[in-house]
């Protein structure tokens, strides 16, 4: 008791030194508690995000794979993940592993989709007007298209210079005179004259120029020869998961449909990730308005935040995106409305639009509202709409291009992760479409090929001879599937093709029928599950089951020769998974440094204290204090110093964590939404952090007392005596 009192008083006797040490220890322990709590919370939330949005607790794939599953990698190429040939059998085996709740088939890949340009959209509108015999609409759209082509010819801007024409010409897509033809009165007069395809009108082929062919041919001429000239088409870069959408939605319980509907059970279909849909598919003006609104809601201002300022500047330059999309009547409506809204007497629509899009903090809200109320109905707000059919092109494993048409049923997101780009990385696709795209022969594919072969009279060629038969001396040959490449289905911008093997065959009609049939087909669960998948996500009944289930599956794979590789969510989430590890390292390094400094300073101060008190210690020894009493005293001083301030630090840290747990740390950028599994990170206290804090303090205390204690114990009682002088 007396020793403790002495220790406390000794500590208090040197206030400055004590305060310096105290601050260090308090800071260090606070950091341990707060940092530990934050990182644990982050770890949990990130696990929730990753596990709940894409990976599942475990991922299983073939051990023939050359690469590892990495769900958040930079999509530079399709990794070689081998394949699981019989998902049904695998599922059966895996579902018996204790802890496994669901086995979700999966495959991830990426594809490019041309969303079509404005001309495409308008040509489609024209087609619809012609088909329904809507003459007024037809006139309006025709005029719009003509004006757009005129604009293309006049302005090098949108045409990206005439090199585009030259390039297309060199690809034999655009022939000299095409653009002029598309602007000629005769062309439009003839197109206007027919509202349906006249019987017996010849198809447009290289031998029959469009000016002599029927309406359909004229439309196709516009679609194939003129539309590519406009460069405002967007190439969507889609990453997708081929999966059983029903199982996916059920297992990833944060899943929710935002627009449209769920892909009906057993059917082919595509769901777009809402984030990607908003970012890449939405009209650029609308997108900018949204971005600025979001930032302003977060407290940023156009005037005050450089980033937002840039967005506003960009918005002001987007007037063409609006004006180009407006056909005659719409243009008049919007122009009038803008003039009234801006109280302006400007005549030029582009100038008006520019004035409207030049926003500041005062005008923003009103203009944002006006845009959505008055302008948005007249423009194409999303280049891909729910209900559209997308043509997804992909490179199969064997290296050839394949394309599949699939209907977009809607958009989806993960609840709580709405803003996260990482959780919005993957679009969803049904398994059947995925298998088609990935290049695996499904029953449907086989049937389609057979149909095409019958219709075209092509013959089966031996694989070895296929190359010569098809391409002459060309180098690339399909290695995996020896059948000819199916023609690109309808709706695509014409792919440059060097040969016309299928010329003269009604591919389009056949393809369309085939697509319709496929899209409406309902597959049974067995059909879905029997067949190839790339990997499977496993949902377990708790995070804590991961090691056990992983081991069990590895054992099962060995025992039954399933040839599986298993990895937990952290291993398959690549950089995202390592992210926490990196922060841990940073935190631990900071803590180590702080405590090393604390150790040195405490050690120093104790040494000083020991030297200062040599006589006092000597006197104590002379009076009969044993060495261990002196050791006890010094240790106690160190402990009082360390634990006193350590406790203070822990309390401070706990308080901070509790407050943060109540208030939450807001996700101030979109990626944090993913890491935080929502808009806020709510850290919680865990006894482990206290233990760690105290363990660190203990180690530092003991280590720092070691040397001064040795010094102190070496003090002889003689030191207290008067020196022999």
């Amino acid at each position, binding site marked *: *008791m*007396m020793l403790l*009192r*002495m220790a406390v*008083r*000794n500590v*208090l*006797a040197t206030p400055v030194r004590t305060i310096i040490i105290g601050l260090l220890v308090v800071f260090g322990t606070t950091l341990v508690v707060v940092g530990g709590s934050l990182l644990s919370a982050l770890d949990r939330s990130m696990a929730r995000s990753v596990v709940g949005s894409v990976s599942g607790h475990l991922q299983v794939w073939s051990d023939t794979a050359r690469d590892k599953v990495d769900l958040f990698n930079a999509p530079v190429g399709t990794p070689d993940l081998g394949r699981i040939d019989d998902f049904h059998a695998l599922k059966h085996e895996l579902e018996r592993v204790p802890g496994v709740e669901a086995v979700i088939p999966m495959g991830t890949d990426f594809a490019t989709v041309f969303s079509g340009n404005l001309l495409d959209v308008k040509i489609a509108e024209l087609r619809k007007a012609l088909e329904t015999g809507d003459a007024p609409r037809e006139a309006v759209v025709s005029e719009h298209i003509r004006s757009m082509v005129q604009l293309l010819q006049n302005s090098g801007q949108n045409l990206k210079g005439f090199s585009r024409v030259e390039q297309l010409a060199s690809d034999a897509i655009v022939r000299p005179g095409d653009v002029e033809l598309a602007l000629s009165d005769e062309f439009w007069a003839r197109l206007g004259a027919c509202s349906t395809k006249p019987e017996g009108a010849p198809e447009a082929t290289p031998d029959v120029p469009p000016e002599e062919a029927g309406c359909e041919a004229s439309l196709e001429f516009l679609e194939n020869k003129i539309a590519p000239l406009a460069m405002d088409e967007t190439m969507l870069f889609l990453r997708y998961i081929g999966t059983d959408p029903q199982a996916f939605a059920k297992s990833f319980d944060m899943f929710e449909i935002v627009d449209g509907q769920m892909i009906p059970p057993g059917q082919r279909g595509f769901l777009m990730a809402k984030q990607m849909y908003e970012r890449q598919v939405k009209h650029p003006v609308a997108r900018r308005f949204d971005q600025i609104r979001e930032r302003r809601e977060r407290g940023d201002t156009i005037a005050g935040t450089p980033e937002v300022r840039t967005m506003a500047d960009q918005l002001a330059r987007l007037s063409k995106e609006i004006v180009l999309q407006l056909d005659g009547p719409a243009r008049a409506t919007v122009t009038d409305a803008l003039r009234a809204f801006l109280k302006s007497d400007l005549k030029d629509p582009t100038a008006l639009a520019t004035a409207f899009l030049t926003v500041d903090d005062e005008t923003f809200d009103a203009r944002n509202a006006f845009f959505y109320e008055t302008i948005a109905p007249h423009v194409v707000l999303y280049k891909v709409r729910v209900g559209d059919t997308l043509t997804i092109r992909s490179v199969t494993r064997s290296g050839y291009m394949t394309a599949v048409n699939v209907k977009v049923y809607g958009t989806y997101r993960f609840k709580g992760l709405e803003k996260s780009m990482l959780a919005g990385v993957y679009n969803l696709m049904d398994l059947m479409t995925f298998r088609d795209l990935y290049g695996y022969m499904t029953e449907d594919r086989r049937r389609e090929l057979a149909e095409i072969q019958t219709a075209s009279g092509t013959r089966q060629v031996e694989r070895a001879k296929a190359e010569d038969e098809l391409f002459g001396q060309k180098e690339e040959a399909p290695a995996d599937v020896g059948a000819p490449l199916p023609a690109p289905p309808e709706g695509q911008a014409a792919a440059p093709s060097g040969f016309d093997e299928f010329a003269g065959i009604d591919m389009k009609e056949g393809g369309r029928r085939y697509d319709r049939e496929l899209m409406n087909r309902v597959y049974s669960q067995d059909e879905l599950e029997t067949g190839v998948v790339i990997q499977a996500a496993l949902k377990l009944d708790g995070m804590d089951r991961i090691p056990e289930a992983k081991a069990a599956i590895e054992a099962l794979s060995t025992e039954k020769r399933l040839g599986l590789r298993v990895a937990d969510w952290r291993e398959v989430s690549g950089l995202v998974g390592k992210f926490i590890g990196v922060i841990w390292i940073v935190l631990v390094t900071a803590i180590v440094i702080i405590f090393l400094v604390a150790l040195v300073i405490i050690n120093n101060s104790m040494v000083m204290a020991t030297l200062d008190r040599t*006589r*006092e210690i*000597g*006197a*104590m*020894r*002379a*009076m*009969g*204090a*044993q*060495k261990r*009493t002196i050791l006890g005293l010094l240790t106690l001083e160190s402990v009082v110093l360390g634990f006193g301030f350590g406790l203070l630090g822990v309390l401070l840290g706990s308080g901070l964590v509790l407050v943060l747990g109540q208030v939450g740390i807001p996700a101030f950028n979109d990626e944090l939404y993913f890491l935080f599994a929502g808009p806020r990170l709510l850290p919680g206290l865990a006894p482990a952090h206290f233990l760690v804090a105290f363990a660190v303090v203990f180690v530092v205390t003991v280590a720092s007392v070691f040397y001064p204690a040795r010094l102190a114990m070496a003090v*002889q*009682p*003689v030191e*207290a*005596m*008067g*020196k*022999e*002088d």
Partner: protein
Amino acid sequence: MNGANGSIVTLANVGKDYPMGKLTVHALTDVSIAIGKGEFTTIAGPSGSGKTTLLNLVGCVDTPTSGTVTVDGHDIGKLSERALTTLRLEKLGFIFQSFNLIGVLDAFQNVEFPLLLRGHLSRGERRRRVADLLLKVGLAEHARHRPNELSGGQRQRVAIARALVTSPRIVLADEPTANLDTDTGTAIIDLMRTINETEGTTFIFSTHDARVMAHAHRVIRLRDGRVDEEAR
């Protein structure tokens, strides 16, 4: 366990050498002294004559190079450091030239300190003894003062109380008045003398102050590490 002749401290042919670089300093040479129980003995001599060395040996904080030192029947040359420490705790009281009070403890706690080192005593007993001694040294009112709040004489009185609190057989004082003015020094010596007479505690102290020596039963003079003369 007194010596055969009733001595509590016996030095027989004691020599003490200190190595000093390449030289050896002979601090004590062939010293033989016997000090009886209850004696009030002064070790006198000029600086460097070996007073402190002699006290260190008697105080069991040092061991002789040759000869034997017997303290209360124990040959200190044969004891381990730990045993020496225990011996000091049980049998000896120290009064230092520079008081050596523990700065962070008040007067009462300083006096209590050796009792705590000993253990075994109840809190009440400790308090009683400490209060008793503080009263004896005239510091009852200063019990809660820290050393830096006390004058030199008061500090030395605390040191005396501390030396006596364990009821030691021998109290050793190394120039106890050297840091005090004459009047205070005299008062301190009187106090020690009084305790010597009332409690029968053996006092051995060094000094080179003639007035202090006047109070002693016996003066042992040292010169160059040898006993020069003895006076009673």
